[in-house]
Every structure is written in structure tokens, then in C-alpha cells.
């Protein structure tokens, strides 16, 4: 598990309009690109220093490529980062076709099997 690296991906993509657009349009290419470049730069994009030992587990990479927020929730990715980035990607399209908050409510419904249970921890 590299929850830290998953959260770093969500944090860095959500704050950059160009990376966010690329994550919406071609998530497979963007995840591969990020893991090999920005993800390895120390902190938030240090130009020189590299972190050599971080990478995604296969299931983490799959969940990110498939925008699988249920799997990300279940592996303990931070709820705020997940919600924010997938609202950015899906809310406008859902709202236009199905009404306001329809994406947010579908998101909740897909997680409804967790009602009444302790959620996976977001602690690292």
C-alpha cells in the first residue's frame, strides 16, 4: 500500500488545471506520466530532488486509471481529495443531464454498503 502516493497524485492533479483536464481525457496516459515524473519530484514539484522509492501498487494504479472512487475509499485514500477531484471531473456533466448534486448522490449510493460500519482509516 502506498496511500501517501495515491493522495499525492490526487493532491497534485486537483490543483493543476492542465493535469486535471488530462486526467479526465486520458487517465491511463496521465497516471503513467505522473508516476514517472511529477510524482517522483520531492514535495510539490522540486525541480532537482527526487524521491526514488515511491510507486503505486497495481490495484492503486488501476483504481486511479478507472476513476474508481469506491476502491479508493476502501483503500483509505483521503475522502476530501477523492471527492474534490471527482466532482471536478464529473459534477458538471451529471448536473447538466441529471440535475444538481446527482453525481454526489450517486457517489454516496455506491458507498452505501459502508453505512453502519467503521470506514477504512485515512491515517497513514
Amino acid at each position: 500500500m502506498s496511500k501517501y502516493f495515491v493522495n499525492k497524485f490526487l493532491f497534485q492533479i486537483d490543483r493543476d488545471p492542465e493535469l486535471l483536464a488530462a486526467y479526465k481525457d486520458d487517465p491511463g496516459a496521465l497516471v503513467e506520466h505522473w508516476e514517472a515524473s511529477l510524482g517522483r519530484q520531492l514535495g510539490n514539484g522540486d525541480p532537482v530532488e527526487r524521491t526514488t522509492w515511491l510507486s503505486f501498487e497495481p490495484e492503486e494504479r488501476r483504481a486511479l486509471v478507472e476513476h474508481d472512487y469506491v476502491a479508493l475509499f476502501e483503500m483509505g485514500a483521503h475522502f476530501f481529495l477523492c471527492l474534490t477531484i471527482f466532482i471536478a471531473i464529473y459534477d458538471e456533466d451529471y448536473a447538466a443531464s441529471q440535475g444538481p448534486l446527482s453525481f454526489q448522490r450517486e457517489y454516496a449510493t455506491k458507498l452505501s454498503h459502508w453505512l453502519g460500519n467503521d470506514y477504512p482509516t485515512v491515517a497513514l
Partner: protein
Amino acid sequence: MAELSAVLATTHHPFFLKATELTPPEERIPQAAEWKRKVEAYRETLTAAQPDILVMVGADHFHQFFHDNYPTFLIGKQPTYDATFYNEEREFSIPKYVLDGHEELSGFMLQGLLDRGFDFSVSHELKIDHSIICPIITTRPDADLPIVPIYTNIFAPPLPSPKRFWDLGRAIRSIIDEYPSDKKIAAVGSGHLSLELGGPRQFGETGPDPVFDRNAIEWLANGDIDAILANVTHESMSGAGNATHGFMDLILMMGIAGPEKAAYVDNLDLFHTMEAYFTWYPNGDPRKDGAR
């Protein structure tokens, strides 16, 4: 010595401006007018205190700080603060602001906190996020007063205990009381009642735990720290909603006021959250009627 003229503890709802002003009237939610009316009435409780400086308490939501270096408690010490990040503008339509800072009080506060056993981090390039800009929008929309921003970690566990937030509030109060100045200082902080984000209880017809919300309003209204410390733990907050830990910043604000009844209490049941507004006047109620 400085006068602490008001302490405000408020929920922060990032969609307030969008819901009540930026959305065309015919498309607004049914509660928009009532929400705006309640916020404007709450604003009067700060205006009446005639503050010169605002000590603001909030929490960064992974806008500037991340797990590579996440501060537990942090204070800004700058002449000026930019506010509102790109992704807040994108999601919430919150405008950008430039706020004056009060470096002298920031420095006095930082030293006072260190002297009292709170080993704060300090930033000289802090950008303010919606946890502080939302209460600026609701309680001081002209954004015309210098601020001293204090950030807490309610977000990236492990978190400090509820008792630690209360104690921090008490420490901030004693530092304000000792500040050698003839200025009036108001403390304004924001947090949450029960809240769920990115989980199965999000965006429901009410907040995720109306029972917690009712109790929390009662505890804060009565200054009942004993009940809070007997009932509120990290686990009980998680049970009320996965993002409920922002309640600890409201405990901190009550710590600044002390274990006293609030002079002003109001709330509004919205979809997704219960909004709540509290004001204490530690040095006397400046409003003519003094009514609660």
C-alpha cells in the same frame, strides 16, 4: 491591554456566496433567503463589537499543506495574505482576496504560544483557504481588518485531542488578554458540526448526524466543556460523519471565550449540513438590547 471584544464560532459552508448571491434568484435553493438573513444577523454580532484586528482560526484543506509536511498547529506572520485557491474558485465560486496581516500580534501570539507549551509552526508565505475566507465573507465581507491566521490539523490523522483544542483556545485567550495594545480584538473561527465528505452519508437531506448536531449546539451555547469532553472523542466524531473533526475548531473557539453561555446562538438546517452561529462577548455585550 487589548480588549477581546467578541469571539465567534461558526460553521463554514463554502457554497454560501454561490447559493445566496451568485446563483440567479429563480434557481436558488428554497432556504437561500433565510440563510442570507441569518448570516446578516450574525454579522451584526461582530460589527457591534467594533474590532480592530481579527484572530482567525481555520484549517487548510490540502490546499497548501500536504502529507509531506503537515503542521499540527501553524500561525501566519505576514504583512499580507492572498486567499482562495484555484480549486476553491473552481468548485465553490469563492472570489480571490488580498487581506492585510497584523505581523506584530502574530509575533506576540507565536511567542506566547511557545511560552505556554504550544510549539507552533510558523509560515511567512501562507495562502488563506476557505476555512478563513468563508467567515470573512459571512461576518466581515469588506475584508478591511488585519488578520492573524491560526491553522489547526482537523484533517490529516492522527489529530490532537478535543481537550488539546480547548486548551489551545484558553492559551490564545490569555495571550490576547496580555497583548499590550489599546486595540479591540475579535476572534473568529470556523469548523463544522457533523459532516460527511466522500462517504455514503454525504449530501443528504440533513447533516449526517442530527442528534450530534443538536447536542453540539447545546454544548456550545451553554459553554459546557465538561459535556463536550465527556462525549466527544475522535471515535464519536467519526461515528457522526467522517469529516466531523472540524468540530474541534469550534471547541477551540469556545476555549477562547471560556466556559460561558454564548450571547448569540442561531442555526439553520440545510441539505448536507446543519449550519450554526455562536458569539460570546467576554468583556460585555455591546449590543443595545443585549438580547440573546
